[in-house]
């Protein structure tokens, strides 16, 4: 039976702005299914983004949506969540938005362990501005500002999130479409700051410069270069060379920020 996405989409906003073959639409569908699984109410859910292709996502969804400034989604969202902890807060955005200009807000949202879910669509490029390299562009790759090959090392976004203190970190891909909703749903249900990195494709500004002949080739590349974390346990270091792990990479229970602040309120009122 077809899934009823229309129930969660704002009327008359499609077709979306993303290019043919861009995986952001696949991720948006996964997010919608996850929201459906979790039974989140539209008026009690804020979806917050920064600037970039991926950050246009909230405009299509029929929730409280906040399309902020470049890199600032996590900080705006922190304000929303602090002021109204009863709201569900979901962040969406790209790799450049989240880990370059928004890097500071990102690591500190992880550190606080504030109960929000951040979906980072990592297509390894600044798409909206025409394909400049991002902190997630692999060394040696081509971008409009690295035509001689990228000299910069890339972030491992999931590791960055774990290192900064996020208590749920998962990675999926646009190829593994039927897992996206499951990872996001688990992230939403986790109490604390959860990060879901989705390895995504940008055929227009990344694929074309890096010798991918088609969208399908990019999708298959996502399949071939990733290994589920459980399968990886049985693989040798040689077999894992050049592979990126997918699935739930990290999970722990830790005090959640808005609950800790509720205790601050209790202490302040007791001392009054």
């Amino acid at each position, binding site marked *: *039976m*077809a*899934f009823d*996405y229309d129930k969660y*989409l704002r009327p008359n906003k*499609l*077709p*979306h702005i*993303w*290019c*043919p*073959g*861009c*995986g*952001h*639409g*696949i991720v948006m*569908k996964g997010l919608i299914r996850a929201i459906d699984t979790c039974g989140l109410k539209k008026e009690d859910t804020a979806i917050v983004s920064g600037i970039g292709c991926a950050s246009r996502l909230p405009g299509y969804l029929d929730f409280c949506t906040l399309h902020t400034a470049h890199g600032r989604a996590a900080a705006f969202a922190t304000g929303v969540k602090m002021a109204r902890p009863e709201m569900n807060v979901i962040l969406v955005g790209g790799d450049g938005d989240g880990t370059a200009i928004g890097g500071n807000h990102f690591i500190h949202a992880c550190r606080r362990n504030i109960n929000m879910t951040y979906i980072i669509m990592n297509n390894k490029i600044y798409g909206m501005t025409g394909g400049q390299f991002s902190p997630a562009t692999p060394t040696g790759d081509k971008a409009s500002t690295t035509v001689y090959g990228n000299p910069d090392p890339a972030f491992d976004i999931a590791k960055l999130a774990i290192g900064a203190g996020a208590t749920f970190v998962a990675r999926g891909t646009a190829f593994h*479409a*039927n897992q996206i909703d499951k990872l996001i749903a688990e992230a939403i249900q986790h109490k604390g700051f959860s990060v879901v990195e989705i390895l995504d494709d940008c*055929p227009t500004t990344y694929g074309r410069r890096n010798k991918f002949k*088609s*969208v*399908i080739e990019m*999708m298959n590349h996502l399949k071939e270069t990733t290994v589920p974390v459980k399968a990886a346990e049985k693989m040798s270091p040689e077999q894992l060379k050049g592979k990126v792990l997918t699935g739930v990479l990290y999970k722990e229970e830790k005090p959640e920020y808005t609950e800790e602040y509720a205790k601050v309120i209790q202490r302040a009122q007791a001392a009054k």
Partner: protein
Amino acid sequence: MENKLPTIEIIEKYCKGCYICVEFCPKQVLEIKGFVVSVKNLEACIKCMQCELRCPDFAIKVTA
């Protein structure tokens, strides 16, 4: 009624002709005609839903 054919609804104004559905369909049910997808062989459809799942553009709805 096990062999009842599914309905594959194509929303042409959403389709961007990216070929993802065509390529990931295991039974070659779909093709790109002009700039958008169309159904060329509905009888072959095994209702695996790969096209609907993977379509980035919300352009395909499969009702089994």
